[in-house]
């Protein structure tokens, strides 16, 4: 990732443990970008759309999204991000969740999710998947937010 285009990673994950494991493994892959962690949908949406440092108002970002959240479904957040009039509709969204239901996966892609990853329960696979995601993040090009 380019230094001057510091892409922040927004992680929306209700499970503190998962968040910690994800962060650790992303770091192990050599990704040093800023990681913002939110455990519920409301504050995440607030940050995404309204916060001064959020992607809507300031710079590019990448969203790691869990589908099982306490206050709303991850697909609701996905819908809001990818809505036609959303300022962050081009922000890549990586759905990272335990659900491997085919219908759910289809739905997420239909809503505009960019990558769908099922969290492997086996930790070696999990760590490896996250590290590969990190490698992927290091080469991905992220568009700027639409600022009008």
């Amino acid at each position, binding site marked *: 990732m380019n230094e001057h285009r510091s892409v922040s990673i927004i992680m929306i994950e209700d*499970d503190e*443990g*998962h968040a910690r*494991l994800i962060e*650790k493994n992303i770091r192990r892959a050599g990704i040093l970008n800023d990681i913002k962690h939110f455990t519920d949908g409301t504050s995440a949406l607030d940050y995404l759309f309204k916060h001064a440092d959020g992607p809507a108002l300031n710079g590019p970002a990448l969203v790691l999204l869990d589908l*099982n959240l306490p206050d709303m479904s991850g697909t609701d957040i996905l819908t809001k991000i990818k809505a036609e009039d959303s300022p962050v509709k081009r922000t890549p969204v990586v759905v990272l969740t*335990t*659900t491997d*239901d085919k219908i759910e996966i289809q739905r997420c892609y239909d809503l505009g999710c960019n990558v769908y990853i099922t*969290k492997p*329960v*086996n*930790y*070696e696979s*999990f*760590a490896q998947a996250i590290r590969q995601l990190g490698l992927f993040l290091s080469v991905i090009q992220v568009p700027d937010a639409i600022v009008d």
Partner: protein
Amino acid sequence: MSGVLAQRIKSPEGHARRFLVVCMVIGFAGLALIGIAAALLTARTSEHTQWVNHSYQVEVSIGRLQALIEQAETTRRGYVLTGHTSYADNARATAARIGPAIEAVAALTADNSRQTARIAGLREQLAAIAAEQDKTIALTRAGRRDEAVASFAAETGFRRMRAVRGLLAAMLADERSLLAARDAAQQSGLQTFWIVLVASGVLIVAVAAVSLAAITRYTRDLTTARDRLQLLNTDLEGAVAERTADLSRANEEIQRFAYIVSHDLRSPLVNVMGFTSELDAARQSLADLVDAAEQTSPEIVTDEARLAAREDLPEAIGFIRTSTQKMDRLINAILKLSREGRRVMTPEKLPLDEIAAGVRDSLSHLASDRGAEIIVDSPLPELISDRLAIEQILSNLVENAVKYLSPDRPGRIVISGQRTRDRVMVEVSDNGRGIAAADHSRIFDLFRRSGTQDQPGEGIGLAHVRALAYRLGGTIDVTSTFGEGSIFRLSLPFSLPDAGTTA
């Protein structure tokens, strides 16, 4: 509860029955009374008829006697007047018949003392008359007719004849009065009979009316009960339909529950496994540190630290790992089953031969590795069912057979089947190690396995097979002798109905 109800239903029924029995008894008693009265009356009438006949006989015999007496007297007078001997013969013949005639009357009236007394008087008078007659006839015959006429005039014959007539009249009158008395008795008997008849008739009619009313009421009660029963029956069908809907709703609920639970269980498990790995990595660094310390300054390394780093921690982490891995497999099994349960079944025409051959081919590698052969006993029937489900069932059964071979002999697994009316039976038989009888139903339960645990597996396959068989409207069972082999029998409907098979 039901006992009380039964008693409440039974009690009025018992009353009605007892009442009907009483009515019947009264009715039959009335009939019997009529019968007895009729029999008595008939006996009495025939007796009466006999007596009437008797009276007429007596009258007739008295009349005959009187005629004979009169005739005898007339012919005697004729002889005395004319002297013709034919009169004399006639008179004698007639007189000879009087005796038997009297005897006849005496015999008929022997039971009546008054008549007997009169007959005695009659005999006396007649004897006198007869003597008189003989005398005049004898005189006439001797030619002394004047003498005879004189004696005739002087004799008391006329008076005697009058006495005889009086006696006979009295006898007749007596008989008539007897007849009248008997008639009267007969009349009164008849009257009694009529009274009994009418009374009994009234009784029978009353009993019949009451019984009829009771029966009608009883029948009406029965009809009402039957109608209510029918209504309940109809309700029952509705209730069954409702219950079935409830059940399938409950089943859906369970499937959803299993899905959610297994999902939510996975999340914490990721943490447990993840941090266990982190812990292991940390332990490794600590162990390295202990190793290094032991070399540079062994005095600071305590036994506890060494033991913890080299034995206790690896052991604990190892147990956590195997347990979480097992839990993960179990959760995945539940997830898989619930996912299968939610799949929509799509019935299509399936050639079982083709499917069985496909299963055989996909497992032939594994089978030949283990020295077993899989035989499809063609031709197998066709059926209309869900392809994937049938494939999974057969594949699970054959795979089990390949897994649990007997070490004593080369494996031989046969897939056979036939159609019986509207069902299709499919059998997977093997000569493997068999299943102990105690485990025959247990093996179909989730996470339950049988025999030596020397093969990988979670005890899901047969649970899955049974769930699929049920979803296809079928059943599965096993017959097996431990150490000799097993036969799994799958019974499926020939045609799986489409519509509404989502669970």
